[in-house]
């Protein structure tokens, strides 16, 4: 077999030692590589052949261990699973940064304490139900259907690519992050777990509703765990267990009830559904500013034609849920 044609690729790699350097810098390395070379292999070549000081985490090189998550051309992903060729084709170079949302220890290695701390807080283990103690000597057998309910989440390798990609983590330390919530879901739907209700009661006031459903975690995940979809599931389950207890759930339930009336959103009413009068007062200056330019905010929409069909769908698919 003929050797693959090589391409000359510039790599701009983030370098920073917080104990010595005043600011991070990018170092350019030019490398001739075959297009299918993984970015991790290229980085290891740089370390072996050019710059032994380059610091990075890795282990299996096979997308199993989850150690080599970093930011390649502004996307959070596994370096071992990202080929150089397509990146070079799209961007003309390969820019390698450490993961976001965590402090840099050195170069491409970040300190993952907040990631693991959030995970630990959600008690990622089976909680025994005192009324249904687990047998001590025999395994608990689950049906394939029971396993299917959460077959995606055990694939997670805790690489933290989702945590790095998440704009909610970036903006608000109260958000536990996509992986923690996906893992929480895994225990909530596990038939052996005795803590389902308590888990849901605990998570609703603790950041669940800060998920932006931007799906960046789902796109970043190398194992197709689809955290954003599991977070959606948790929101619906949390509402079922305790109803609306805070702005997020009040807003979701309020929105659902809002469009039942006319088929279209009544914007002013939605504010009243989400906020109590005292909170609404704090929004008044902003509301007044908007109403001056957009007076329609105060007007209720006209009901759509066929609003009775909408009402019927609510009766069939929403009332049923309440019972």
């Amino acid at each position, binding site marked *: 077999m003929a050797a693959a044609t090589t391409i000359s690729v510039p790599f701009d790699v983030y370098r920073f030692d917080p104990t010595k350097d005043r600011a991070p810098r990018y170092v350019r390395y030019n490398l001739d590589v075959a297009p299918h070379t993984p970015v991790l292999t290229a980085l290891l070549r740089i370390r072996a052949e050019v710059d032994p000081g380059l610091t990075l985490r890795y282990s299996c090189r096979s997308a199993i261990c989850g150690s080599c998550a970093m930011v390649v051309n502004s996307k959070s992903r596994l370096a071992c699973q990202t080929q150089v060729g397509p990146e070079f084709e799209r961007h003309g170079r390969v820019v390698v940064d450490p993961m976001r949302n965590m402090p840099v220890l050195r170069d491409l290695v970040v300190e993952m304490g907040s990631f693991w701390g959030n995970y630990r807080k959600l008690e990622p283990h089976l909680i025994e139900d005192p009324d249904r103690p687990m047998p001590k000597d025999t395994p608990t057998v689950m049906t394939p259907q029971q396993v299917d309910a959460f077959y995606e989440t055990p694939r997670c390798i805790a690489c933290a690519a989702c945590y790095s990609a998440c704009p909610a983590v970036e903006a608000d330390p109260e958000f536990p992050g996509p992986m923690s919530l996906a893992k929480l879901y895994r225990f909530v739907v596990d038939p052996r777990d005795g803590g389902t209700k308590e888990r849901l009661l605990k998570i609703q006031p603790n950041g669940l509703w800060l998920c932006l459903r931007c799906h960046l975690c789902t796109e970043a995940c190398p194992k197709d765990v689809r955290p954003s979809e599991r977070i959606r599931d948790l929101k619906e389950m949390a509402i079922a267990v305790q109803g609306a207890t805070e702005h997020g759930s009040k807003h979701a339930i309020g929105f659902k009830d809002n469009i039942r009336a006319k088929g279209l959103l009544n914007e002013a009413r939605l504010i009243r559904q989400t906020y109590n009068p005292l909170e609404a007062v704090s929004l008044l200056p902003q509301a007044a500013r908007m109403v001056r330019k957009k007076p329609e905010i105060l007007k209720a929409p006209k009901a759509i034609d066929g609003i009775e069909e909408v009402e*019927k769908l609510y009766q069939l698919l929403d009332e049923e849920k309440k019972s």
Partner: protein
Amino acid sequence: MRIAYYPGCVAQESGRELDMATRWVATALGIELVESPRFSCCGSGFVDEANMILNVALNARNLAIAEAQGLDILTVCSTCQGMLGLARHKLNDPAIRARVDPALAQIGVTYKGTVKVRHLLSVLTEEYGLATIAKRVRRPLTGLKVGAFYGCHLLRPQAELGTESAEEPHAFEDLITALGATPVMYRGRVMCCGFPVLFVKEPTANRIAAHQIEDAAAHGADAMATPCPLCHISLDSFQNRAAAEVGRPLHMPVFHLPQLVGLALGASPEQLGLPRHLVSVDSALDKIGPVAVPT
């Protein structure tokens, strides 16, 4: 071209300037917007969180309305596009169909799955064609540097929506180029605007919006443009709150996508509802020349 126009709630209410600009552009380009007073809200992601099956059923009804007209659906909102598109995908799942179809039958609706849902951005870039649009430009937006801001639901989840690229799209930048302006590339263009938590925890939403606006500005953008009226609320209507939250001044004009197209095709700022914005767009208008031939 005839297409079923699904304006969504915001374009009919606080974001009426989006509807004004869409109609102006459609007329200018000869796209016939077929309206229906029967369309209901897409659920905006919130109904999906409260009751997923109900949300799919409501959108199956919306899709069926266009099916009965024999037309594809045109959206002008990334969120409507995402919600209708996601419902369309979920309706391929037999388990979901088994729960939704009997309810639809009771209101006399049959969903067949023949209708496509298309955002104005893809109608303009794929169907209408950038070359044709470029030929109709009467006021090239030369000298204006524009940061496209896509809105999450236009792009993700990619597998379900079948979008061009979840993280590296270019249709909007291609359109900006066709209008004579210069697209600005920045990380924030595919990020979240913060809107989903604007009514959950406003400071968090404000910080996210400020982050994207400052990212666009740092890369040289004179203005941003968005295909989503919810992003517009975060980026324009709440820009003052975003600035207050981060403690830095912000001034970033934010156009709705059809407003930018309309400007290049020769519409006046009033025809496009630009005076309705909370952040003045004058600094952006000053960068572009007058219309070559008066309308």
